């Protein structure tokens, strides 16, 4: 949100506008990097994560799935997420949100927004879809309760049975969620 509003500021009044325009990258090379990532993701077969472009011909919108890591409260659940790449990717982080409702201290239960530092100020150009998905997967098991997006979930985290009840109340299996 903050990024959006600042991008609408008059170009010459905002010191950020300079950076915003500098980070524009060749669309062709972004597509190249994205198809490279897709290939890596397909070939590496990381357990429990996958992602693929939503539509043919548009490499900038992906849909991914994350399986809850075993031995966590999310074990056995699968979450669908959507990934949207900006035109100046990888210099700017992609926008990611949960499509499957995810009851989690750092996930907005209605909008699916995720509070994860590497998706905001700690983003780095060397991160990829794969690193994001792996981070999200580990975030499921190890939430950061200090900065909760869902305070209810954060306070319930210490009582797993109550948490699991809430989690299952909101959860919808992937096939129904779209």
């Amino acid at each position, binding site marked *: *949100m903050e*990024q*959006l*509003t600042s*991008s*609408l*500021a*008059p*170009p*010459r009044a905002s*010191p950020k*506008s*300079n*950076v*915003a*325009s*500098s*980070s*524009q*990258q*060749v*669309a*062709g*090379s972004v597509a*190249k*990097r994205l*198809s*490279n*990532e*897709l*290939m*890596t993701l*397909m*070939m*590496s077969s990381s357990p429990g994560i996958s992602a693929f*472009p939503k539509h*043919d*011909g*548009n*490499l*900038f*919108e992906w849909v991914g799935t994350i399986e809850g890591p075993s031995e966590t409260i999310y074990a056995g659940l699968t979450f669908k997420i959507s990934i*949207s*790449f*900006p*035109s*100046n990717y*990888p*210099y*700017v982080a992609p*926008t990611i949100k949960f499509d499957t409702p995810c009851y989690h201290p750092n996930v907005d239960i209605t909008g699916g927004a995720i509070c994860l530092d590497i998706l905001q100020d700690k983003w*780095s*150009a*060397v991160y990829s879809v794969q690193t994001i998905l792996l981070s999200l997967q580990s975030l499921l098991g190890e939430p950061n309760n200090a900065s909760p997006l869902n305070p209810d979930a954060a306070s319930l985290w210490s009582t797993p049975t109550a948490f699991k009840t809430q989690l299952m109340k909101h959860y919808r299996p992937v096939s129904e969620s779209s």
Partner: protein
Amino acid sequence: MNFLDADVPDPTDFPPHSTAPGLRALDGAFRCDICGELYDGPVTISCGHCFCSACIRMALANKQECPSCRKSAGEAHIRPNPVLENVISSWKEARPFILGLVRREMEHATTPQATTDKGTVRKRKRSVENSSSFDTLGSGVAGPSSYPISPSRGPAALLKSPSRPKKPKSAAQEIIDMTVPSSDIEEDETTPPNLAPKADEIVACPICQKHVRYRSLNAHIDRDCKDIAPSFNTVNSWSKIMGTSKNGQNKGKHKKTGSDSDDEYPLPISTYTTLKDKQLKDMLTQQNLPVTGDRSIWEQRHQRWVMLYNANLDKSLANRKTKAELRKDLKRWEEERTRKKKTAITDVKGYQIENKSEFNRLINAARPKAPSRSTIHPTSSPPSETKGPPLLSQLSLTEAGDSIV
């Protein structure tokens, strides 16, 4: 499924570690972590991490830290890495060859036949011979049979052998090639001699002796050898360059060898917000860049040009592009961006960023028309605020407003 049809050369072209130890990792190690391509003009920053010059310049423009380790870094820390550049040039040549070898090896493994097996054996033998000639050349400590397991000799042979039938690319490689004994030339007879230079190879222009890429040689001659970098110039193009450069510090360029890159200074990074339109325009004309479009296009064009230009200087002379080629790259970049703009509605955020000046203009134009509602915050203006005449411009404004809320 068309994404998977595209031929994307990446480390997974090589079989996994269990089949071909190290090869996939090797190809991965030669790639920039930002773009995923083989290093193009590799540079090192203060923490020691390597990136393509253009990639790290773009990243540092966003954030002044190493993308890999987050140590603080700036443009001033960028140092060219010519050794790695040489390695990459050699790897680019060796890669298809090694892939071919690997593929053949895999075929033998899956369909073991007497005849093909023989082929493998011969192949192996030859590579052993290769190494033996190299051994006598070098230290000569290890016997030939140690080649396949000796890790220290591997990369050296890899560096040398593919470049042998070709013209030298740089001084370093030239030295290696000069010391190659006659036995190596005999070996060349076993592989078909490749007489025609490759498109990317640097050849001397038959007219002006300037080193140009074979691919651009014809164009170079068509232009009467005039597109030349300052160091190899004729009087003609001299006056041209003197005319466009701001200070006449173009002295001492009568050297003929390619070592006088000292007159190729990087362009300074400008803060465009403090510049007047005229100044910015002058900066563009100074670099022989077009001044079409509005101010934001000028800024982006100049910024991108500075980036491309400085990144190009980080490459060794042989790998550098001419200014004309760089201008072509810049043009392609602008074309791709305008093409993207037309289809950009799918990428709402990018579309907004790209068109922010236009949106601002529309918002400012729309504001007086809207009934005065002082309580509404400008950035969170709901679509209802823009209830004016149903113009097309108003529609796009509504769209922008929607996605903000």
